């Protein structure tokens, strides 16, 4: 048992730093709002915007453009670049939200 445990430890050490598996986060678009209005993800994670409103929406930020997301549809975005992003629905100027992408190695 002790030998097995030591072996496991060595195995982990050889594998280098432990990386969390990429996660998927959901932003619901409903009631003419992005919910949650702010999200924190890690580089490599995916954000899915789901349009649960009747009218079409879109996600637009610097370097990010979903195109039209019609009712009942979703749009997936893999967050690669770390930083803070503010985005809007370009069709409805009242709709604003943001997300932060932490570097992959950050805890």
């Amino acid at each position: 048992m002790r030998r097995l445990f030591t072996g496991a430890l060595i195995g982990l050490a050889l594998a280098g730093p432990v990386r969390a598996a990429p996660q998927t986060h959901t932003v619901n678009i409903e009631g003419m709002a992005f919910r949650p209005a702010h999200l924190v993800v890690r580089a490599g994670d995916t954000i899915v915007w789901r349009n649960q409103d009747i009218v079409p929406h879109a996600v637009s930020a610097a370097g990010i453009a979903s195109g039209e997301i019609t009712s009942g549809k979703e749009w997936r975005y893999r967050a690669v670049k770390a930083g803070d992003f503010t985005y809007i629905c370009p069709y409805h100027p009242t709709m604003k939200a943001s997300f932060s992408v932490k570097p992959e190695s950050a805890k």
Partner: protein
Amino acid sequence: MQIKTLTAIATALLAAGAAYADNAGPNDAQIAAIVVTANSVDIDAGKLAEAQSDNKDVKAFAHQMVTDHTAVNKQATDLVTRLKVTPEDNPTAKSLAQGGQANMDKLKALRGKAFDKAYIEHEVAYHQQVIDALDKVLIPSAKNEELKSTLVKVRPAFIAHLEHAKHIQAAYK
């Protein structure tokens, strides 16, 4: 000023509760007709403004009104079809259609900034009145739960449109 048109719409929407049998408000079939007419009126005005305005903000707003109100009408039509409800014409729907036509007639005679100002002014008043009608007449009167929840679900879109229109209107004051 288009007080006459606005008054016609306000009267039509807010009197809706009193215009029906034993003051019970419109039934679901009548609500369906009111919703479809209210959206259609704004789609027509939006198409006109898209074609007639030279202002990019007004054109973008008008385009959005056409897109959103078309989506709402599709949802409403799909729902009433599924529920086997046939929209029933009624005094409110008729008045809305007449008010919409009066607005179109007025707008067609205008050009440039005068057109933009009149169109946006009407959009502000129209959305406020539809929100009032949703809150005071349409949502409370709806019997079918799906119809009621659809009305509740479209309300935020009218609020967002109202705020958007007010934002543009501020540039004309």
